[in-house]
């Protein structure tokens, strides 16, 4: 597989950044120039090139604020997903440099330098493309959604987190277990999902074990005024993150964190045991289930599990592909049919009144369930209220039984108040 993503200034066509994924050559300057050129060519005649699809590849162009063109080339994934990714990449740029810097571009060299900080974030974002490649370490990344973990201790951690939030005088904070949200404050969920997602990536990339204090612009909430994003490591794999203004200092935040959480280290430790199953061991699911993806479409958060069976620890290596299948199923069969208002790839592309393309669903028709049967496995997705559960079954599971099992499993997962779903 291969994926490229690059940013070019609209006016001068100067490359600002370029990232790639997979074992492929770097794009030559001339190729990059041509890719930018075709996009620029149509502009005078009122034509904007959006995307091009070939057998296995998709290329997408997107211009932001009439100043930055982001071009993505990827194999194996749909153009819809690629388009969503471009928006996220742009948001990552704004997160680091702020919208004014992107618009004015006074000093390109400085912009390039500043953007280095978000390269790890962009690289991680590329992992959320579903290339169907099992070498991907982060198959559980879903574009435009935030990953969570359903620890049985979540309700206890929530209480501690609330007191910590008071201490540091911030409304936005959360606890990350292995880079996944265990609990967060209500206000944290009020952030745009792209902001949440990018902050999470910022917290886990590079070194997880040291405290971070990074100035960030929130692309939707405050694109011009910077906040401070602080992430402190509590124990290994567990971090506490918060957004705050110029005060308090990092030292004070670290102290507050140490004070608040010193009595709950045992809870945090046992919570971190929940990974990689990602949901409590006490919940027993049907033996035909190979993988789970639980999505809340309101908050755009999800939980993904590749080892739902308790005794399946040794099959770990082969099970990474399961997440790929589930993710592809979600992208192809769920994201555009079962989730209302997530229209299609045009969501961010087209002016408001022409939001959808023709294949999007009518407002009146609502998808409720969807399934795939393949030679080797079956996927089933079911929606109840705001929750969607996608289940990967072994091919031995009868098609008609999937509905029942999925519904029971969904019920089991979300009825437990302790996990704070």
């Amino acid at each position, binding site marked *: *597989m*291969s994926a490229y993503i690059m940013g070019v200034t609209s006016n001068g066509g100067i490359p600002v950044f370029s990232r790639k994924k997979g074992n492929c050559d770097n*794009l030559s300057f001339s*190729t990059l120039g*041509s*890719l930018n050129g*075709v996009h620029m060519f*149509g502009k005078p005649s*009122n*034509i904007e*090139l*959006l*995307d*091009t*699809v*070939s*057998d*296995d*590849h998709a*290329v997408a162009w997107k211009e932001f604020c009439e100043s930055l063109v982001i071009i993505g*080339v990827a*194999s*194996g994934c749909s153009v819809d997903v690629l388009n969503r990714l471009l928006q996220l990449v742009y948001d990552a740029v704004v997160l680091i440099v702020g919208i004014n810097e992107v618009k004015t571009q006074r000093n390109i060299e400085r912009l390039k330098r500043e953007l280095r900080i978000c390269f790890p974030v962009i690289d991680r974002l590329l992992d959320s493309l579903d290339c169907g*490649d*099992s070498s991907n370490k982060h198959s559980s990344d879903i574009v435009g959604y935030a990953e969570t973990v359903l620890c049985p201790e979540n309700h206890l951690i929530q209480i501690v987190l609330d007191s910590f939030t008071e201490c540091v005088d911030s409304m936005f904070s959360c606890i990350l277990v292995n880079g996944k949200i265990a609990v967060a404050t209500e206000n944290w969920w009020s952030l745009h999902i792209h902001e949440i997602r990018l902050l999470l990536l910022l917290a886990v990339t590079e070194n997880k074990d040291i405290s971070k204090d990074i100035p960030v612009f929130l692309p939707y909430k405050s694109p011009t005024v910077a906040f401070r994003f602080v992430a402190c490591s509590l124990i290994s794999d567990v971090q506490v993150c918060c957004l705050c203004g110029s005060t308090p200092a990092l030292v004070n935040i670290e102290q507050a964190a140490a004070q608040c959480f010193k009595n709950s280290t045992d809870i945090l430790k046992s919570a971190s045991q929940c990974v990689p199953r990602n949901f409590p061991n006490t919940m027993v699911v049907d033996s035909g289930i190979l993988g789970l993806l639980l999505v809340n479409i309101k908050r755009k958060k999800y939980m993904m599990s590749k080892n739902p069976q308790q005794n399946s620890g040794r099959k770990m290596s082969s099970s990474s*592909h399961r997440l*790929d*299948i589930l*993710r*592809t199923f979600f992208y192809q069969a769920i994201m555009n*049919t079962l989730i209302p208002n997530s229209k299609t790839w*045009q969501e961010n592309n*087209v*002016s408001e009144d*022409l939001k959808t*393309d*023709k*294949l999007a*669903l*009518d407002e*009146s*028709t*609502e*998808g*409720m*369930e*969807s*399934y*795939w*049967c*393949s*030679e*080797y496995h079956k996927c089933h997705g079911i929606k*109840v*209220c705001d929750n969607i559960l996608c289940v990967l079954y072994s091919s031995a599971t009868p098609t*008609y039984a999937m*509905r*029942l099992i999925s*519904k029971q499993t969904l*019920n089991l997962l979300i009825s437990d108040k302790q996990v704070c779903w």
Partner: protein
Amino acid sequence: MESQRLLSSKGTVQTPDESFEEDWAEESTGSSYYSDSDSTIPDWEPYIDDSSGELLYIDCHPFVTHNKDHIKLDSKSEPFSKTQLRKSTRGKFLRLIRRKESSRRSKKALRPTEEGSEINTQKVKFQDFQEGEQKIVTLEIDSENRYNLSSDKSLAESLLGLIVSTLSDGNRVMIAGFSYDSKAKHERNIKIGDWLKSINNMDVNVQNLDDILQKFINHSEVLLTLQRVAATEVTKDPPINELSVESDFVRELLNTNEDDENLSEKLCSHPLGVIFLDTDKCNEANEDILYFYPKPLKKNILSICRGVFITLNHLLQDLTDTKPRTSSILHKGRLAHIVYTQFEKHLLLYMLPDDLASIKEIVLMNRELINFLEFLYGDLERCFTKNCNFKRLDWLFFRYFARIVNGNKWATTKQFLERIGNPERIFDRTDSFFEELMPVVPTLSLHDDALMQIDDALAELEASDYREWNEDPLDCQRLFTILGSALFHSGYLLASHMIHEDLVEVYNFCKQQGLVHLSRTEPVKSLVMWREVFPRSCRRNCGNDSLNAPDGSRYLLVVGSGKDFLATIMEAGGCTEPPEENMGPDAFYVEEAQATLAHVQELGLSVVAQRCLLANGGYEVAAPTPSPNKRKNDFIGALNFSKPTSPMVLRDSPGSTKKNEVTSILKRRNVEQHLSQEEAYDLYSEESGSQAYSETSDDSGSRRTRQKYDSNDEESDLDEFGGSSQISGSSFDVSEVRQALLSDLGEYTPAQITTGPHNVLYHFVHLDLTEGVLIGPVECSTLSQTYDVILNNFKKCCQNIHGIFQNTLRFKNMSAQEIAKSLMNKSLIAIKEYGTLFECPFLDEKDKKGRVSYWVVGRLFYMPHPKEVYVCYQDSVPQNVVELAFKISLYNKV
């Protein structure tokens, strides 16, 4: 004279040596026709295009607008103008050639009753009538209905079988139509729109008509005096009755060369068009553009920004080793998609806006268009580089895009201008399409007996065994070999003897040319279409060099009548006479095809097909109903689904009455388009009574005498075989066959495909892309709003499912090496079933709230060859798609 002129223009056909004309004519099969200068010319003869030999001739039933009943009556009442058809043949064959017609065709020519009628037949056409042409007709009074004067029939209708109304002055009596069982209908001198002047020389008007008729109630015959009324007078008062010879649609079909720059320019404001580029030439002076539409160049969006697509086409191949398939652009805020098709050094770009067709639909439409052009011109390079094509292509593309702008419904220029002049309507989301765009032919599965009859007739046509026509052995070569033929009814395939790929192309051609639409909406009196074509099976064989010096040419002949049309692919060259340049249709073959069609219709097969259509193609389809238990958001409610939710509450719940319910729904749907079953049946049984029996006795007699002549044992064996295949045994009896076919009513009780006590099937599509066959319930515009919403969503969903299945098929066809290299998403390589449950509000009855939940499920079968089945059914009893697919195949006989 017309024929003389033709004779000279067809000099190559004609033997140069005129003195041998008689002898030559005897030997030659088809060309003899031209030597007969004063025999009747076929009606279509003058319409042949001199330069290309192409022909499109449509003779419509004249109809009276603003008088709907009569349109229906008139257009349905004549199954085929047999007399007219045979007349020209008879003239020349009887006079010139001592030939006998083949068994099943001869009877018409030998009918004594017709001899009589032919003598006093003037050739009257609506086009050329002038005021005052007066005719005197003797009409038999219907003895059965003489005293059976019911209140709902006028006296004229029950006695004479004529429906009368008044001319524009409100006083004179006009013939407005014929009753079903009318003998007057077969009287060629009585035409709709005629002024009934007098009966037995007594002048009639509206007031005294009934009184006068009363006087003749006991007579066996009356003498009617009719006068043709000038067209101007008839149309003077359009609200009452307007006589049209052809509809606007037909007029535009026949009009091949009109192109208005204004129309083309109107299209330019939309992001649509097509352009054919030579990628080797550079951009200077626009030399790289070989063809583009819409004109003018400066406003054509594709030509303005072609550089983008040429570069991309190049760039993506360098970058990814794959060719680009589609691009999406935003033009003035409107989304549009472009499809790339590369032919060696040429590149075809095809663009449509998204609000008219989704990207998946556009890809399919592009393929359809290319197939159509290749079928017409052999290959696209030839199509777009011959200068003489341009005007025709412009007109072709104008009508093509006009149709698409009109939501893929055929539109006349007027409708198009209305639509395009109204910017709000153009942005309306149009319907989705799925099976309509697939390279398949919608098929009606008739029962075995009917199929056998059709096969028999087609086989005889294809065999072209004309030995029996002439006692002297024919030693000249044939003009054509018939490669295959296929019979359609209302645009549905009944039987085909063509190679699958050719059949799909022929159907696509008929669809793009509007013939399918024509046969669905306006039954015609007669249709003849002829042109050179390049069927896929023949394209594949010949390399590039053989295109310049073709080994043979193929021609497509389509003859139609009523709702039926018969398509035949003929080959000149090879074992037959070498083809000439721009060969026109040969009257003999056209008549053969027409006679075959007439024979099939006479057997009542179009009634059988019509009945099958009314029975929804033989499959039962349910009407959507809201699910009784309201959707509950709590879990207990949601978990209830495993219990058999009380299945669809059709208005009557018991199973026995349900079937009736469904049929009545079907009838209601069809009531505007079709005759009801009973009517159709009555109509044809009447005909069988009045004509067939007399024919039959004649026919069998003549046939026996001919058999005595035949010394050739083999041939009589064949005849015996033909005879024994009929139900009546040794003698060939059309009416009995027809009776047998028509009485077989039991076959068309629609089959229930879904499991469970009630039918829950809304729609299904069975796609066999290898064989090019599409099976499904008959498409009909419904009165149910909910059903339309469901169907539209079904098609959208099918597009998606079909897209997913393409991955599976692609992977199956990959070699191990390719798999290793491939960048496909490995999670998509083996999907064989894909289903989605939808909910939509119930829209039909305001007071009945609730939601309809239904499944759309697609299943891919790849053994023995890929087939796809898509079903849409109500969510109640779990259905097994494999089982459904099995049942569909079981009920289908094709």
